[in-house]
């Protein structure tokens, strides 16, 4: 096929100010990381609370958490994003609405919407992992904690969660990677993250393959680094004497 390869394209001017195409990728990567990391921290916090709720005795709290999971896991991510970006703001008080839609920098308002959206979506998935992790623990653990006078809160905080989280590091790692991939939905509401910048480069330069190849490489390296990071975390918190643990 008569494609014109030009790997120098990334160092060529975009025609906007003094920017080169590589600048777009750098800024896109920055947004991708900013979206994914913040959403992940929020998802981890919310998902953990929900996961604990699902394992509590009683009826009401587990039911609330279950309903949350069903709702957020089953509505497609894109639909949720459009709701957070286009629909929800219309129900804010008039002044807040004007502020959110017009005074705020559009990149900021898109950023807020996408972080909220990804955080709540991923929280439902984290919730399920946390629940599984807690339920995988021997029942004796909570009995032992309660028997020494711990409250339910202390039992979770000091005994159940530290163990549950260790168990679920591998599935959480894949959720962590997913949130980076899912962050590309941000491009649909005009946030110029990595995928958006890639498409823009492809459109502007007509060097489609170079642009997508670079994006692939960046996502790949990002993935590998995150995986290495999580491996490190897993090693760091590994319990001595347990399977594969340090001797």
């Amino acid at each position, binding site marked *: 096929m008569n494609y014109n390869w030009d790997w120098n394209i990334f160092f060529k001017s975009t025609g906007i100010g003094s920017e080169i195409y590589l600048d777009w990728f750098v800024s896109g990567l920055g947004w991708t990381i900013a979206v994914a990391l913040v959403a992940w921290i929020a998802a981890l916090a919310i998902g953990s609370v929900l996961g604990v709720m699902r394992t509590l005795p009683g009826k009401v709290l587990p039911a609330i958490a279950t309903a949350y999971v069903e709702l957020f896991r089953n509505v497609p991510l894109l639909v949720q994003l459009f709701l957070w970006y286009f629909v929800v703001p219309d129900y804010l008080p008039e002044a807040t609405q004007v502020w959110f*839609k017009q005074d705020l920098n559009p990149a900021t308002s898109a950023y807020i919407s996408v972080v909220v959206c990804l955080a709540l979506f991923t929280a439902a998935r984290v919730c399920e992992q946390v629940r599984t992790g807690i339920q995988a623990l021997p029942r004796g653990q909570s009995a032992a904690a309660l028997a020494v006078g711990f409250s339910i809160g202390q039992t979770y905080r000091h005994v159940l969660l530290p163990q549950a989280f260790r168990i679920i590091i591998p599935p959480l790692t894949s959720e962590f990677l997913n949130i980076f991939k899912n962050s590309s939905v941000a*491009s649909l*509401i*005009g946030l110029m993250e990595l995928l958006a910048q890639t498409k823009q480069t492809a*459109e502007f330069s007509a060097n*489609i393959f170079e642009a997508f190849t670079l994006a692939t490489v960046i996502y790949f390296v990002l993935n590998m680094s995150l995986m290495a990071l999580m491996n490190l975390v897993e090693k760091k918190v590994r319990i001595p004497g347990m399977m594969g643990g340090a001797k």
Partner: protein
Amino acid sequence: MRFTTRLLTTAVIASAFAAPAMAEGTLDKIKSSGVIVLGHRDASIPFSYLANDPTKPIGYSHDLQLKVVEAVKKQLKMPNLQVRYNLVTSQTRIPLVQNGTVDLECGSTTNNLERQKQVAFSVGIFEIGTRLMTAKTSGIKDFPDLKGKNVVTTAGTTSERLLKAMNAEKQMGMNIISAKDHGESFLMLESGRAVAFMMDDALLYGEMAKAKNPGNWVVTGKPQSFEIYGCMLRKEDPAFKKVVDDALKATFKSGEVNKIYSKWFMAPVPPKGLNLNFPMSDEFKALVAKPTDKSAEEM
């Protein structure tokens, strides 16, 4: 890392070359296969889009594309030449032409220098100006009025590039939103997130026709650029290019293009029976009178 990059590059290049190599010209290929493959869009109203029949595109560019098919039939003496359709997107249209999947793409593709490095363009089939759409009550008349405002445009378009460049050069302090498609850009305008929408005027008229209250909106401002749309075909295929260009030129010369234009821009079009009411611009009239396959920047 160096190794992975090289690996990926190799993979991409290999897959690119694995596609049918086009040693023979397009006409030979059509002749031997008995099929011409037309590239079309799904939502470039009214240029090339799908309305009631999901297997067959319609539109202004498509009607011109069919004129070319007629010419090919005549040239190859193949009255029974089959037509196959292949949907393309803005990302896939260039590679699909290059690798031989699509023989001729007619949609709303701007002829520019970057793309000329990858594909050949027919003579121009349309000319647009990049302008603004805004609410009639917004008080915005032209680009200088946009200082410090939120302005939306569609990602990956020339308007986006022009708007960003204008913002950088003239320090206008605009907040530029890049929406994913024209429909979403208009949604940004309608929902009050942006005060103006910069885009090809023809597309602006298309969005306006779809609005709940078309009367609320106005297309305004001095065109910031002119762009010529062309059909895309493979580079270095003079025989095929000649058939394509001649067919289009003949349509221009006979005045038939006016009928096709009126059908799509001055009368109700499917699927909703909207009328774009977009009269032919002087620039396009000049192009019809003097066809060229150059991009607007070269003129």
